[in-house]
């Protein structure tokens, strides 16, 4: 059990995986000499050399395509997309090639690759460097989608991703890299593929993932002060999604909120709200609420950027309203 950062936990996972499995290679822009745009892969090229830590030209589509081919021929590539915002150039290789090869070829050829990338707001990086695009991946059968929120998950979920037989899209959050936390390399936060309850509560369930988990936990603490006990669930593995734990919790509390940093329309929150509405209908005291990013591109102005995504305050106020029917100041 050691105290480390989200960034170093990911780096440790890559290092341990590369030591344990010679077929693991890294390929991406600036992953070698530069050590990664956010320093995640620092030093790995010195340890494993340029054949296993490959600095790629700025060719996102071919980087993902090369990873697909490497995975088909015995390697376990970790392709890195510097920003998830660049996934638009790779969606064909990701959704038509990586995701569908096993299926189209009748099960003959798997694509055991990991696409590591990071998303989210927080650095005034504007509309093309701040997005949360996991919904595109969620909508693609054949892909697995992993979004770690804690230091321990950053390590274990990446190690586990590197044992999968199918492509995994692993999305980190730029705002979490410097977050400190406990890492126990022998003890994952929970089983692969399943959500984890980060806080128990009886009054409502707040379902979230990635950085929004922490805003949700902060909101839950403040709710407790007002006597409202919120259960907080961290999705961790979004596709395929094991919704059984969500359903159990919602049936128990009768109230639920889903929080995402992404544009709310067509988001992961919409999918979960739809599922809970279908399955928990008779148990719901209140509608399943979505709290997400505004339906706009991300503005560069720090104030506007902050204002465009959910805050602990918004989550707290909405939850309090949901449970106590006490309208917040911003109620229209």
């Amino acid at each position, binding site marked *: 059990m050691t105290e480390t950062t989200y960034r170093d936990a990911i780096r440790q996972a890559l290092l341990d995986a590369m030591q344990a499995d010679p077929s693991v290679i890294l390929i991406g822009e600036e992953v070698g000499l530069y050590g990664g745009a956010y320093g995640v892969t620092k030093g790995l090229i010195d340890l494993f050399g340029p*054949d296993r830590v490959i600095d790629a030209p700025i060719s996102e589509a071919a980087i993902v*395509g090369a990873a697909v*081919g490497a995975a*088909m021929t015995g390697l376990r590539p970790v392709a890195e997309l510097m920003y998830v915002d660049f996934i638009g150039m790779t969606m064909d290789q990701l959704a038509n090639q990586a995701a569908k090869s096993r299926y189209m*070829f009748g099960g003959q050829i*798997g694509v055991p690759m990991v696409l590591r990338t990071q998303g989210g707001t927080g650095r005034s990086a504007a509309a093309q460097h701040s997005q949360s695009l996991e919904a595109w991946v969620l909508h693609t059968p054949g892909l697995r989608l992993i979004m770690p929120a804690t230091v321990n998950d950053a390590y274990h979920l990446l190690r586990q991703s590197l044992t*999968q037989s*199918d492509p995994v899209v692993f999305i980190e959050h730029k705002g979490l890299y410097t977050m400190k936390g406990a890492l126990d390399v022998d003890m994952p936060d929970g089983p692969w593929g399943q959500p984890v309850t980060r806080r128990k509560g009886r009054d409502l369930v707040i379902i979230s993932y990635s950085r929004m988990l922490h805003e949700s936990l902060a909101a839950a603490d403040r709710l407790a002060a007002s006597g409202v006990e919120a259960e907080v669930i961290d999705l961790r593995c979004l596709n395929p999604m094991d919704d059984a734990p969500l359903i159990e919790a919602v049936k128990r509390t009768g109230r639920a909120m889903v929080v995402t940093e992404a544009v709310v329309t067509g988001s992961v929150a919409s999918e979960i709200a739809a599922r809970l509405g279908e399955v928990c209908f008779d148990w719901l005291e209140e509608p399943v609420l979505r709290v997400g990013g505004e339906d706009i591109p991300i503005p560069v102005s720090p104030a506007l950027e902050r204002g465009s995504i959910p805050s602990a305050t918004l989550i707290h106020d909405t939850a309090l309203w949901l449970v106590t029917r006490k309208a917040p100041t911003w109620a229209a």
Partner: protein
Amino acid sequence: MTLVQTIAAANTAAVGRYRTMRRIRSFEERVGELFLKGESAGSMLHLSIGEEAVVGMTEAMQPGDTFTTHHRGHGVFLGRGADPARMMAEIAGKQDGYCRGKGGSMHIADRALGHLGANAIVGGGIPHIVGAGISYRNAGSGQISVAFFGDGAMSQGILYESMNMAALWRLPVVFCCINNQYGMGTRVDRSAGNRDFPARAAAFGLKTARADGADVEAVHDAARALTMDARDGRPGFLEIDAYRFFGHARMDKSPYRSAQEEAEGRARDPLAHARNRITAEGIATEAELGGIDADAGAEMDLALTHAIAAQPPALATMFEDVYAPGSPAPRPQAARLSAILSEGVRA
């Protein structure tokens, strides 16, 4: 080998290439029949008739080498040893086809023979050989990987991203462009600002060659040189200058090109060319080649009969192969709806 033996070997090989080209053409003719009989899975069937000289490249490859193809890949796969019966069954969407009836003509693949997959996305399979090249380079296995694609893919940016990586990382790969002069109804002069394709590849640092698609031996000579270089980490690009004898797919009657152009194009027939050469040089007689033709026809008739008789996949198989065996299959919708609506589950 004595000179005599060398010549003998070359002659046998030349006859072998003729046989493979004939088998490809006979196969494609049966694909046409399959469609006309209404037994094919859909109409997106792209025949490689006129492009059989690609055998010059497939024969320059070694066991263990891998490849990807475009949507017009039947000939390439047969050139690498495919079982025509399983291919035809796949084209008919049957359970015992190469892909269990899930892929069809545009998505045939075979791990065992190194076929990493036909692709219905123009250019989609090209970067995969870059990754394969990394595998082989890192393993020092001596294998190469070859991407087969059409002239249309010369307009896809991912081709140049891939060429640059191959040259930069000295990968054991070859890019093989089968230029049949058309992308659907668009002749190359209407899609290329500069039709010198090898010049493009050279500008990215590849070894290049262009070969006459009517002459399988010329293609083979160029392919041998390029594949040898590729094994040594000098990646290459080969353009096979051919002609698409028929329409783009089964529905296309090629109204956009003249009868005269088609006549001239079809005159550049790699089978006729090889046949003349082989008989002229006395390597084999018309009668011997006739026998080869008959055998090929009979073989492909069997493949056709097999495909028509074969069983379609069971409905439940649609949920298999989305993820690897061992991981739970996607939940069928009927099960989801039942879980919501069944009396039992309601409060």
